[in-house]
């Protein structure tokens, strides 16, 4: 009997605790929306320190000073045509404390601009394309995500993550020219 009372008591305490936690989590979620996770990127915009909201990794000592995470957002209009826009994921982007510099910010900005270039390229194809299924569109998107990754890797390798200033300038010029076309 004593055990039954004890387990009932534990059950009641656990239920109340879970309810309180759920309520607080709900309230916290609402408050958290003030800091938006995503925003649409365009080459005219500038990145700032506040775009790197993620806490830096403490145990990856040899990783980079900063990392910007980009995604592709898409929408479908009434005629069944898709449009892709690059977005900055602020919650997944980090910058190491004390590593802030204009050069790093510029390097990361051109990562975002590469996404703009790929998105423009995709949109040019998407204007004349109607997909039979959503799956077909996702395959198309996946293909360009791989292309973006490859371009990111090439950009990082050639500029040595922005440390090689000459190559950085060359890439900036190259990406700007690609965006103009």
């Amino acid at each position, binding site marked *: 009997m004593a055990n039954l009372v004890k387990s009932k008591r*534990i059950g009641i*305490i*656990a239920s109340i*605790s*879970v309810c*309180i*936690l759920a309520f*607080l*989590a709900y*309230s*916290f*979620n609402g*408050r*958290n929306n003030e800091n938006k*996770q995503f925003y649409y990127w365009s080459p005219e915009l500038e990145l700032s320190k506040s775009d790197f*909201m*993620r*806490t*830096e*990794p*403490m*145990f*990856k000592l040899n990783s980079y000073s900063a990392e910007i995470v980009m995604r592709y957002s898409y929408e479908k209009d009434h005629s069944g045509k898709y449009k892709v826009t690059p977005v900055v994921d*602020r*919650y*997944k982007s*980090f910058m190491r404390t004390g590593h802030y510099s204009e050069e790093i910010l510029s390097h990361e900005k051109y990562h975002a601009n590469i996404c703009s270039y790929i998105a423009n390229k995709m949109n040019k194809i998407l204007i004349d394309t109607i997909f039979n299924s959503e799956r077909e569109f996702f395959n198309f998107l996946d293909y360009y995500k791989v292309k973006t990754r490859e371009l990111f890797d090439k950009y990082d390798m050639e500029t040595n993550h922005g440390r090689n200033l000459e190559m950085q300038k060359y890439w900036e010029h190259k990406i700007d020219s690609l965006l103009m076309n």
Partner: protein
Amino acid sequence: MRYIKTFSTREITTCLFSAIMIMALFSFFFTFLFDTLSYTLRIIYVTISLLIPIAVSHRLYLLEHKRPNSLLGRLINNAILSFFLIIFSIIFMKITNSFYMFGYYSNAVFFVLLLVYASEILLSIINSLFKLLKWRIW
């Protein structure tokens, strides 16, 4: 060794409720108090909300076993508490889409272990002060 010999589900449930208590106090802090409190008050609140549940768990051990917990027992107790706390905090952060505050799982593990064991050291100091006054609270 006596801790291991007498180890039962009671120890686990005590750690579980201490972890829930810490989570409740922390989530209350981040939801309602973070913007209103000054920096000093935030540190005081965080310290107290860590110290009280851990002290309560030690106090419950004393009441249940009629003897205070040993050093090894407290270390294991805190490891179990940290385990629950890591899981709860990660779930809470994931649900509320605020995991960017931890950034990485390794950061979460490190932060929680650091906070729990630092609180334990602080509690030991407080306990030795109580011992001077011949008080045995936990």
